[in-house]
């Protein structure tokens, strides 16, 4: 099956173009935009881990190593498309337009962190596994029924392909030709369980055959191939050709979350052969004359300032209102819940 689903690349590990058919699509602006977002979300990710270690942020799920997959896929979307991320896809969310201070607030347990900016369709990150696949299928099907050209993208990991929801979401989308891209980031581990122990299939892409949809296997650390293949799948979807399964082969550099230690379940030398996606993009830019030291410097400073500001905004955010606990449970608050709210407020005032 590996031979049926070879890993597609635009660039090799040294950043050299290996498939010239994409060459005409590459331009300086695109390359700089992709690099900018990868650098931005990596800096965010590292900042989030450091805030968690200092007790300034809750448990956090890092995505370092998966920046090319997240940025390339999110950049291929149109503004009115639907995004269904998981807890590890905050990089994709930020690239698509989620608010950065809001993203920090999410990890501090604030409901404000789940609210997408006006005009962006981003579902709250799915924390249970694979539940977002049927959602993506349903939203895409609804857009088709409404007669729009909007599509949806579902983010999920290798572990999610074991769930029943994976099968049901894929089948539904295929049967109803829903315009959805099933974007799999195969980072090779479901918490501590390596992919060989999760499935007997050699690839995830081959699972598409069973649903009668195209399956594509790509180098998830090559931001350009991710961007072009997701774009192509979205275009097919918009034309009414139905869903595509894309397997982006990547690597989770760090832990599952800040609550575990990957050295306890991964061989020390595993992943050593992987070239960091940002370094690959840097090599590609240098090889092709897109690397501009002054621009890189200026970009880094701008992003650092943006992140510092977002942290400041998160930390100066007013403490949550007790009302938040009650106000979003129903459209109209039932009398019993209103009573409970009142009694909480009274109880808390009594304690002050």
């Amino acid at each position, binding site marked *: 099956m590996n031979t049926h689903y070879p890993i597609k690349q635009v660039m090799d590990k040294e950043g050299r173009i290996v498939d010239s058919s994409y060459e005409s699509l590459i331009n300086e602006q695109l390359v700089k935009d992709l690099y900018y977002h990868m650098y931005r979300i990596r800096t965010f990710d590292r900042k989030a881990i450091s805030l968690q270690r200092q007790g300034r942020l*809750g*448990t956090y799920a890092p995505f370092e190593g998966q920046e090319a997959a997240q940025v390339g896929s999110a950049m291929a979307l149109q503004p009115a498309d639907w995004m269904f991320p998981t807890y590890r896809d905050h990089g994709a969310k930020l690239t698509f337009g989620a608010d950065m201070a809001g993203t920090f607030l999410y990890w*501090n*347990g*604030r*409901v404000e962190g789940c609210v997408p900016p006006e005009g962006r369709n981003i579902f709250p990150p799915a*924390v*249970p*596994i*694979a539940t977002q696949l049927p959602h993506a299928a349903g939203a895409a099907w609804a857009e088709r029924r409404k007669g729009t050209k909007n599509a949806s993208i579902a983010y999920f990991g290798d*572990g*999610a392909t*074991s*769930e*029943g*929801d994976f099968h049901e979401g894929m089948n539904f989308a295929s049967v109803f030709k829903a315009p959805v891209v099933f974007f799999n980031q195969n980072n090779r581990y*479901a*918490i*501590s*369980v*390596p992919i060989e*122990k*999760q*499935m007997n299939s050699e690839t995830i892409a081959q699972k598409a055959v069973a649903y009668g949809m195209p399956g594509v296997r790509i180098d998830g650390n090559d931001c350009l191939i991710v961007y072009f293949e997701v774009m192509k799948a979205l275009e097919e979807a918009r034309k009414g050709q139905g869903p595509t399964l894309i397997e982006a082969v990547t690597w989770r550099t760090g832990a599952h979350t800040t*609550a*575990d*230690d990957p050295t*306890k*379940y*991964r*061989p*020390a030398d595993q992943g050593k052969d992987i070239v960091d996606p940002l370094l690959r993009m840097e090599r590609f830019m240098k090889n092709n004359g897109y690397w501009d030291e002054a621009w890189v410097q200026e970009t880094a400073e701008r992003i650092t300032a943006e992140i510092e500001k977002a942290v400041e905004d998160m930390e100066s955010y007013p*403490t*949550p209102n*007790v009302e*938040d*606990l*009650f106000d979003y*449970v129903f459209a109209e608050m039932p009398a*019993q*819940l209103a009573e*409970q*709210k009142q009694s*909480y407020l009274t*109880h*808390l005032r009594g*304690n002050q």
Partner: protein
Amino acid sequence: MARIISMADAINEAMKLAMRKDENVILMGEDVAGGAEVDHLQDEDAWGGVLGVTKGLVQEFGRDRILDTPIAEAGYMGAAMAAASTGLRPIAELMFNDFIGSCLDEVLNQGAKFRYMFGGKAQVPVTVRTMHGAGFRAAAQHSQSLYALFTSVPGLKVVVPSTPYDAKGLLLAAIEDNDPVIFFEDKTLYNVTGEVPEEYYTIPLGKADIKREGSDVTIIGIGKQVNTALEAAEKLASQGIEAEVVDPRSLSPLDENTLLASVEKTNRLVIVDEANPRCNVATDIAALVADKGFDFLDAPIKRVTAPHTPVPFSPPLEDIYLPTPEKVIEAVNEMIGETPSVGAYA
């Protein structure tokens, strides 16, 4: 010989003892071996689950008996139910009780009904171990306490221990039991320590335990809310009110007699349950006492629960969401204030 160990270690020890005693006991679930699947770690100390509760099991019992399953709750839960009906005695670990949504049919429609639908010919000696409880900053989909859902299903037994000693004895009883038992472990209690004997012992399912004797009010707590009740009782004692704290330990079957006898003695009842208030165990026990113990009561029954909202992710909101000793004391004071006494009319 008893030693002081944590609840997590007591649960771990119970599984080891059960597996040493009976070859048919196996464990399956997500990350239960935890790293032992990695070749270079095979003989080393793998982490054993997201909170380390199953640590050391795969080293002792091997991969044939400790299965790291794919992330497929319906798959392994269904497999466990049917494996149990062939004679194995599986422990199926559902990492968080909130994930029951992904495999509810296998538990409530399948495992719970096999014995009944086979006219008694089949049995399902499975133990589903699962984490529950708020206070861990784990948000709305990883913090619920769903024991009432299972308590309402005929064919299932439900256990919610509050101490390391009870956890070990109840888990061994659950594994020995010939019906499916849902065993709830509060994730915030794993590090709580207590005296636990080294040897194999069981605590019968359906037997409540009086954690503190008292004469003025009965406080029934579920799971870690037993500790909330005990803290409240200590503070009430300084006010001159002696509370009796009762831990049902098993919700199905429920030890009605012990609960009713305590209310008969104290004439007042507060139930502390961190689940949402509608159709929860506090409500069920309140109905039981209203039905069978109405004449014992000197005041209306009070329930201290979470509000009818999801568990908030925000730490300050989660802290106020849960029952606290202060809320229990408020409830007790309210009912004692309401109780007519001779002096009140003087």
